[in-house]
């Protein structure tokens, strides 16, 4: 048994310890918002936060999590930065097929937490690890910018 803390709740799973967090989230625990894209940390579709840091869950074995706290896309509407990012995504119609967008939002949220007012160049660089085959990059950049400005305008963290 491995014990992991997902979105504030402790779960026990009986998968082998080398199992990536991605497949544990999806197959054992039903957190299907985190997506499989490549299995090699190349595309970012599986991005989650581990102790606040963006992590590729497809190459992170559950044995490496220990007592660290995992946050997935399913908890982002309860996170004021995550919620602002989601709102910007919806408002600008970023998603096409939408498959990669959970990972994009997790990366963008981590980016804005580390750097609340990123420049255009910093946004592009910060998001370049997340692939989108539909090609939504210009809207992703605009949505990160929008979320950043909303958060700056409303530092109390009330919903945008």
């Amino acid at each position: 048994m491995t014990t992991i803390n997902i979105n504030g709740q402790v779960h026990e799973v009986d998968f082998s310890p080398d199992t990536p967090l991605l497949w544990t989230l999806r197959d054992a625990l039903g957190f299907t918002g985190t997506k499989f894209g490549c299995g090699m940390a190349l595309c970012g579709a599986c991005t989650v936060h581990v102790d606040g840091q963006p992590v590729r869950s497809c190459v992170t074995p559950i044995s490496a999590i220990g007592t660290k706290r995992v946050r997935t896309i399913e908890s982002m509407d309860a996170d004021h930065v995550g919620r602002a990012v989601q709102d910007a995504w919806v408002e600008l119609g970023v998603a096409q097929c939408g498959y990669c967008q959970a990972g994009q939002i997790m990366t963008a949220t981590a980016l804005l937490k580390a750097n609340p007012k990123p420049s255009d160049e910093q946004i592009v660089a910060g998001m370049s690890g997340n692939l989108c085959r539909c090609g939504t990059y210009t809207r992703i950049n605009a949505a990160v910018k929008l979320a950043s400005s909303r958060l700056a305008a409303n530092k109390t963290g009330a919903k945008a």
Partner: protein
Amino acid sequence: MTRTDLETLEQPARRRMLQAGAVFALSLQFGGLVSKAAAAEVGKKYGGAAMPGGVVDDPLVFVSIARDGTVTIVAHRAEMGTGVRTSLPMVVADEMEADWSRVKIVQADANEARYGSQNVDGSRSMRHFLAPMRRVGASARHMLEAAAAAQWKVPAAEVQARNHEVIHAASGRRLSYGDLAEAAMRQPVPKGDQLRLKQPDAFRYIGKGRIMPADSRDIAQGKATYGIDVRLPGMLYAVIARPPVHGGKLRKVDSTDALKVPGVLRVIELKGFDGPPLFNPVGGVAVVATNTWAAMQGRAALKPEWADGANSSYDSTAFRRTLEAAVQAFRRTLEAAVHRPGKALRNDGDAVAALSAAGGQRKVSAEYYIPHLAHASMETPVATARFIDGKCEIWAPSQAPQGALESVAKHIGLDARDVTLHLTLLGGGFGRKSMADFISEAALVSKAMDGKPVKLQWTRDDDIRHDYYHTVSVERMESVLDARGKPTAWLHRSAAPTIASTFQVGAQGKAPFEAGMTAINIPFQIPSIRLESADVPPHTRIGWFRSVSNIPHAFAVQSFVAELAHQARRDPKDYLLELIGPPRKIDPATLSDSWNYNESPDVYPLDTGRMRRVIEEAARKANWGRKLPKGHGLGIAMAYSFVTYVATVVEVAVDAKGQITIPRVDVAIDCGPQVNPERIRSQVEGGCVMGISLAMLGEISFKDGRVQQSNFHDFEILRSHMAPRAIHTWMVGGDFGVPPGGVGEPPVPPVAPALCNAIFAATGARIRSLPIRDQLSQA
């Protein structure tokens, strides 16, 4: 583009698609020089009516109203990112005067007998279903009005449906849609000639661009259900080791170690199929486990032995030379002799004589190359199947649900009526998810597991190595310029394995639907125009990739026009307009195009006026001719595809090291009526990125019959930092009196030639072989 295009050539019964031979005999029969009479077939059906599933416009199929006023509208086509799951119900809601905030969308299962065509490839959703969905909505509106009029005992003409209620203005009475729900649905469905469609100025949602995709919030919260997200009680997980060479077979497998992996339950040998690829699974060894990771680990521990078969020597570098030999003008090399000489698909005037007679200094020739490409949708192929009481139930992301259902039924030996296919969201498709091989695999593995629910997961290397690839092509262009720099002859020789080979063993040369994609139907005012198609064999499964043969054809045609303009010392935009000539409507059959995207030549003539307008608009908005910083260049290209007109201007910046960035792209699109302008923009933006991606990076290569790439490190797709910083979409036209064109695919074809034309303008380097990669830094 697709089996249905092949099929609809002469409307054979759908099931013959699976038998294939008969269907392809027809397509090959049309492969020769097409007579103009061919297009004048009596009673020929076009558009949605010509699709195997046809169109359905019965409001009782698509609309239901609950007592609380909730209007439920069926989205019969699956969502893969174009927005149809929102846009088509939005059309219904608008025509029926439903309040969008009270509309609920439900996703249909695969059932073309009930819903009409559900095939979402070929950019046909709005093209084929705008009119039927308007009729559905208008019928529902009439039925609501009739129910209210009956209740009030007033003539129906005195009442009017407006924003979720019916109003009798004379008496001031109102009834909500909820109040009328049951009575309205008992009203007779109006006949077509009784329908009053809304005037476009009365639209609430259509053309406004205010309705965002229905799934946006669920997607942003990770709640939307894609194929990969299906979960059933007791579900098992499977992956398959497939033959590494196309046509290969499993000789034997040692599964001892695989079965020792914790969580692995069973190893199952799957047989492959002889004959054409169709949508058949390719066989191999399935590993079934209690979770996906265990299945993957089990597969890694298998020791399979493969018999590689006839394609084990496929080498894409050598094959390129074969293609180049096949398009050589008058050479009789040993290689060329192996392949049958190119067939003339169009021959206006005498281009060969004009080229033979021309002096060397006025002759221009160029060859363009595009390698195989993989679709690489972010969601890899995946499907879940189970059997209950001898019936099979499937959940899958499918672009061609009815074909998938029938293909599955064939493989598991059930009647198609005993197979249910639930449609999930598609995590991208781009043509790949029209092929049902992965769906049949899920059903076969579930069947082998006594019907237990099984999710069959493809990994990324499965996806990259077992795709139905975009064809590989060499396009040779030759022309002669007169003293004023105008071409007097145009010769286009094309060599590319045909998609038809996926359906018929031995099929070679372009099918009419391939020739009809920006090769045969060029409207240039040149006295002699000749298109030849060389017969070359496939060595892998060839499929349709977003915009299909338009990609290599538009790349060659639109690059070559710019090359001719340069030779003639003319501005490439002016030169392109001059070749197109004055505004006129052309019957595609007069260009030897018998296909025209299977649309009526009367309803959808090729309109050079619309071509000119998109070129002029894109150029104007991009400020064509403006002074640019050093190292920057503008390139323009236009393509008519899926009966839509698109012109693209790319601004490129090339630094001293040959690194390419794209500050800006301007796209003008005329797709006829703009039903959901916001989603048209998103498709244009995405099409630009995909076009740049394939131009800069896209290549699948083969050695010893094996695909050499396996994941995003070696099959790269465009990342954020390489994408254009700004993409501007400019809408042209938009009249609802014009029939709708496609949107999903048309933005792609002009991108690669516009980019390479821009690179030429910036640097003087002409790129004729894709991908571009680091060609400029090597120069």
